[in-house]
């Protein structure tokens, strides 16, 4: 591999890793707050992608503007899903049963998308869709940079919410020790529902970022759920920084392997990393002391 190609792959890997970090952030948040395995997260990503596409087709505006609508709607949807469905699961079997419940939600979303938009593959037409710029001597598509920028902004906003707000403190406390959080006065039920909403809000941004540079179709979420779960397991379940580090490393590795192995084989890096993690360090590599708790 020439050094120019290596640089190009590395830059693309970083951009891809940033996007993966955003796509996986919500997934690890649900588990951290509620021990919910949210199979439907990627279906919500694709739903957000469709809404961005539909918004652009209908209005002719940039799909990023759709976030003004989809982010609050997805937040509300997350709160509703948690309050109306998740709270009905028995705490003792919550994690296992959430797999079944969210699997069903994913099927409903896929069915609704197929029914509404048909199974035809869709792609957002952007003025800057074919544009690229030179970055350190490598050609990089503008849409990838925009998606990465969106991911950085969204993750930065998520970091600010978690670190600097009273809600964020309560959410982190709930993730780290639910009983102790209750005993300092945190309404953990309310925090869990808002946390779920926050997770789905990240799906709105992630799905839109994904749709900028991908062809979407109703069953696309099955392609994503495996890699995203691999990321949060490698990163340490429940840890957002862990997921971000794992996403970046796996994104870069995948990108570097694409040249010698091709796209399909490069994808296997996620599953390889997942198996190695489960064998060597089941609590994940980057979750810190928090991950030891799961």
């Amino acid at each position, binding site marked *: 591999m020439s050094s120019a190609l290596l640089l190009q792959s590395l830059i693309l890997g970083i951009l891809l890793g940033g996007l993966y970090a955003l796509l996986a952030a919500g997934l690890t948040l649900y588990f951290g707050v509620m021990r919910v395995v949210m199979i439907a997260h990627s279906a919500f990503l694709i739903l957000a992608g469709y809404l961005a596409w539909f918004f652009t087709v209908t209005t002719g505006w940039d799909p990023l503007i759709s976030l003004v609508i989809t982010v609050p709607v997805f937040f509300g949807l997350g709160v509703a899903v948690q309050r109306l469905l998740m709270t009905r699961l028995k705490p003792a079997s919550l994690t296992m049963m959430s797999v079944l419940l969210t699997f069903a939600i994913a099927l409903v979303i896929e069915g609704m998308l197929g029914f509404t938009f048909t199974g035809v593959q869709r792609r957002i037409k952007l003025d800057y869709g074919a544009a690229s710029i030179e970055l350190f001597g490598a050609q990089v598509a503008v849409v990838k940079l925009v998606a990465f920028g969106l991911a950085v902004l969204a993750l930065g906003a998520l970091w600010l919410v978690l670190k600097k707000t*009273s809600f964020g*403190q*309560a959410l*982190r*406390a709930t993730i*780290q*020790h639910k*009983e*102790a*959080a*209750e*005993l*300092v*006065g*945190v*309404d953990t039920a309310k925090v869990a529902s808002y946390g779920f909403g926050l997770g789905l809000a990240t799906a709105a941004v992630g799905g839109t970022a994904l749709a900028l540079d991908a062809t979407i179709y109703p069953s696309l979420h099955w392609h994503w759920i495996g890699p995203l779960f691999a990321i949060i397991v490698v990163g340490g379940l429940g840890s957002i920084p862990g997921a971000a580090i794992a996403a970046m490393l796996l994104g870069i590795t995948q990108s570097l392997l694409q040249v010698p192995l091709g796209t399909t084989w490069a994808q296997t890096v996620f599953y390889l990393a997942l198996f190695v993690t489960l064998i060597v360090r089941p609590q994940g590599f980057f979750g*810190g*002391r*928090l991950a030891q708790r799961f």
Partner: protein
Amino acid sequence: MESEHLLELVDIEAGYGRAALVLRGLTVRVPPATIVCLVGPNGAGKSTVLKVASGMLVPRSGRVVVQGKDVAGDGPQQMLRHGLAHVLQGHSVFPEMTVAENIKLGGFTVGDKAVLNERIERVKTVFPIVAERWNDLAGLLSGGQQKQVEFARSLMISPKVVLLDEPSMGLDPKTTATVFEQVVRMRDHGTAVLLVEQNARRALETADVGCVLDLGRVHISGPARELLEDPELSRLYLGGRPAA
């Protein structure tokens, strides 16, 4: 009429789910600035008493009276407002947060920032370790230090009564001694303590009043020093000879 006790648990019956009762008509009273300790064999219901007092477990019958007002059935948030702070057994710091964040979370329900800052300064004085390790992650502290952070965090609501569940659990003897010194310090600063402890002898040496629990009710209670010196109690519950 204002009660002379800060906290009274009267004729409490409580249990978990549909299982048999754990507490069967238990009555415990906590006067101001006093350490009351509950000792007894495993399964006597010691920790359950604290769960009922802090609202984590709703009693099936009986009264939870805080300064004359029956608050039985209130949840943890309401109990905090009534001035009851519960420190769980084992470690319950938020490990990925700094000591500062842990302490500030202790005042989560305190709206007034000036009051919050004043209480932070107070707990720093009572527990110097809090000031020393202010910016460190709580999970990096030793077991004894974490326990002191938990005590300090509980004082942030300026509680009437602190409920301590087995504070010496998992600690070495030297650290246990430090932790019990801090319990006495809390009492000396005017906070009443309801203490549950497996290390019965140590607990009675620290406490003002002792209650021996057995099968979900108070078997005997009185000044802790007298209980320590009772040969029959020593044989049954304290593992041997009475205090010298």
